[in-house]
């Protein structure tokens, strides 16, 4: 079954003569448990497409479904719930809150209200940190962690709510080769456990970890290979 179905989605920035089509009439289907890698040059529309698929932005036109459900005309509340529970995103830069410890950063999605974080959430957060290999570093602040460890915290935050799909926008972009390799290995491991992954990368060797690779150029999918 498709977890994501995109039918002829486009994203246009600006209007009139200055309009730029970042994503141009893209159709895509993604099956549950699939590991998809998006390749392409800078400005080819990879990140814009990922933002659209991850429900972080809305396409200018086209249809987009998550588990068969239209997520373009979804209410704000439902969209927030989707982002909190089912869709997770990690970025090239970890985006950890500097004043929170690793565990607190993982708990960030659970602090969305006046109700205090429950103990079960804390246990899940610790378990997530253990999964990404950060046992014993729960109470460290981001500046007390290496770049790779910070990215692992971001992954722990992403998987803490047991999402169905993880979007990764150049997760190894700011890391050295060795650390990057370990992140890709971690993502592959998570994929093997059933997590659907969509990853953007510039590095061909990392793309080898994916089940499918799509190549983008000028906002369009040029190559779609298994």
């Amino acid at each position: 079954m498709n977890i994501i179905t995109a039918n002829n989605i486009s994203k246009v920035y600006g209007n009139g003569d200055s309009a730029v089509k970042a994503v141009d009439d893209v159709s895509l289907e993604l099956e549950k448990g699939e590991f998809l890698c998006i390749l392409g040059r800078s400005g080819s529309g990879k990140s814009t497409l990922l933002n659209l698929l991850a429900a972080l932005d809305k396409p200018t036109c086209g249809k987009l479904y998550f588990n068969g459900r239209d997520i373009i005309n979804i209410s704000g509340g439902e969209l927030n719930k989707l982002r909190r529970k089912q869709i997770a995103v990690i970025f090239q830069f970890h985006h950890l809150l500097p004043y929170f410890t690793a565990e607190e950063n993982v708990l960030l999605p659970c602090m969305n209200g006046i109700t205090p974080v429950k103990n079960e959430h804390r246990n899940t957060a610790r378990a997530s940190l253990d999964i990404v290999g950060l046992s014993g570093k729960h109470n460290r602040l981001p500046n007390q962690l290496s770049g790779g460890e910070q990215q692992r915290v971001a992954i722990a935050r992403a998987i803490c709510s047991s999402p169905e799909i993880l979007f990764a926008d150049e997760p190894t972009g700011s890391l050295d080769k060795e650390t990057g390799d370990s992140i890709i290995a971690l993502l592959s491991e998570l994929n093997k456990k059933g997590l659907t992954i969509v990853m953007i990368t510039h590095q061909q060797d990392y793309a080898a970890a994916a089940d499918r690779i799509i190549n983008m150029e000028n906002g369009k999918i040029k190559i779609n290979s298994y």
Partner: protein
Amino acid sequence: MNLFTISFRNIQRRPLRAVLFSVVFIAGLAAVVGLHYVSIHIGQSMEEKLSRFGANVMILPKENSHSVSYGGVQLGSLSYAVTYLNETETVYAVRSIEFNKNISAVAPKLIVTGDYNGEPVLLAGVDWEQEIFLNPAWDILEEDIKTPVYTIAGYSVADRFGINIGTDISVNETALKVDHILAENGDDSDNLIFTTLSNLQSVTGSINKVNFIEVAALCSACPIDDIVSQISANTDAQVKALQSVVKQRMYTIGFVEMLVWCIILIILTASVLMMALFMLSSVNERKKEIGIMRAVGYSKPSIFTAICAEAAILAILSGIAGYIAGYFTSVKVLAVMDIVINDNKIPVEDALITIGVALFIAVAAAAVPALKAARLNPAEALSGL
């Protein structure tokens, strides 16, 4: 840990900025509180001083006469009978009103005619202590009025009839020796002879009777109409406010208060703008953070609340400190100005109002930046890196 933890931690993260902001906000609030208290006490002090230059409420017996005029010419009054007020009862009626703290002087008067060398002269029996309060310009000493009978003559009446110190004025065949001649004041006191009320009542057989009572009331804390209606409720007499006197005094006090309120308004406006700029720069700096919060499912109201809570936390702390600083500054300033504060207790209600106002200012100022933050598109916020 909850949403407010983010607000608290963000303040802790930039302590210097929070402290600088708080210091400026505290200074603004302290200035507002200080000015407010100083203006209130200056107003009260001014009114107390102004009330010493004459009464603003007159209590008379019920009308049993009516004035007669024809063609614009005043022909006097048609009196059916001379009536009096009961001195003890009426003075008590004034002193026992709800706003009795606003009554600064109650001066009863009995007017009779006397005789000097066959010429009629007008005598006013007065309560010296109250009269001196209402006429601070009179050149008489406080120890002189303590004598059982003290009689003084106004400048014009003394000049016209050749009355000197030691001269006897006859009232009902009783001689009253003039103890002092007043300097010229340019008012009604120049034409009258004043003597001790109780003695005049005794001499004329009008025990406990007075023709009218002048009252000096402070009006800054309550309208004069309330004082008049409260006195009226306690007595059958006619109670009239001397509106022109009241208005003139209240205008003077009101002008000072209005000036202070203008300054307060400017300070509050500056505080709102400063807070708005502070929050706006905070939101701009934290775009990434807000973007990630939106990406992990934070709703727009949650983002709005987190930003406003940050402003609210600073406002509550600044409100408490600003109130304390303002209150004690006003105490010091008033001490320098030699104005006595009767009540030295810190008014808790005022403190709560100050904190409330600070909170309102902060949330109002933070609302626009918070709305901007809540409306951030996560994709745009995160792509700015």
